[in-house]
């Protein structure tokens, strides 16, 4: 019998091969088992080759390329084994404008199947929100929140 892990790895690897070129147009990415004959103990290696480059060593990737590769892995898992909601805390901080747009395009697709909660400082990420929450902390050291449905007036979330 195919183990639960083998099944999941197959689906995640397939999703990764599809998502990677969408985040790195012209690039190639693969998830590979380190020891395919030993499904119980094998690890998972990541191969990522951005477009126009030959380098496969993960450590030589730039800061933004590393974020984007890690996001491709996460999104592949989310697609292969969907969950009801996802929370991402400033995951797009290292991305330049072009990559930020690619990230947001993929995020928008997940909106169809799952609820997403994104913490960010990026203005472009705020623009994809259906609902915006502003958190503030006054001199009292106590956090407060105020919400605003995008396209409507703000309302303070009281106690």
């Amino acid at each position, binding site marked *: 019998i195919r183990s639960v*892990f083998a099944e999941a790895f197959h689906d995640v690897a397939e999703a990764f091969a599809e998502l990677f070129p969408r985040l790195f147009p012209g690039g190639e990415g693969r998830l590979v088992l380190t020891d395919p004959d030993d499904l119980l103990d094998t*690890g998972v290696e990541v191969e990522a080759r951005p477009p126009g480059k030959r380098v496969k060593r993960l450590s030589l990737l730039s800061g933004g390329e590393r974020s984007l590769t890690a996001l491709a892995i996460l999104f592949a898992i989310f697609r292969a084994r969907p*969950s009801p909601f996802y929370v991402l805390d400033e995951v797009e901080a290292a991305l330049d404008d072009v990559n930020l747009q690619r990230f947001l395009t993929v995020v928008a697709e997940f909106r169809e199947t799952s609820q997403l*909660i994104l*913490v*960010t400082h990026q203005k472009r990420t705020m623009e994809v929100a259906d*609902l915006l929450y502003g958190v503030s902390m006054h*001199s009292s050291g*106590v956090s407060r929140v105020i919400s605003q449905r995008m396209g409507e007036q703000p309302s303070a979330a009281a106690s």
Partner: protein
Amino acid sequence: MYLSSVILHGFKSFADKTVLDLERGITVVVGPNGSGKSNVVDALTWVLGSHSAKSLRGGQMADVIFAGSPERRGFGRASVEIVIDNAAGTLPVDYSEVRVSRSMFASGETEYAINGEACRQLDIAELLSDTGLGREHHQIVGQGRLEAILSARPEDRRAFIEEAA
């Protein structure tokens, strides 16, 4: 199934009872450095059963209780409740709305409850297990955690996929 609200009271910097009403789709949380955004993320990790003080950025579990500020005294208890919209019947219970809560007292004692009835953390894990919301919460990616996925050893990446399987 989706989260229809998150209620924090005495949890980290949320001294006053604070309700975040949520909807399907994309909710974006913004605010200045140190205002409490990641504390909301920690609240979700905590109510789903996290036992690791380190993943909640504290030294001990009681660090989640509001510690006080120059203007306010500390609290003796932290509590977080999430309200899950179950109209689609994803969760194996007859309710169209399920409330899951966790409280902690300064003594270190923790209490869990489903719809107001005390239960064990295990009961919550079982209730949510079909949705993939396991103990490791791969659905919650904390601030700065992205790098760990890439620099993890191959065995750890395997465990990550196994958790979601």
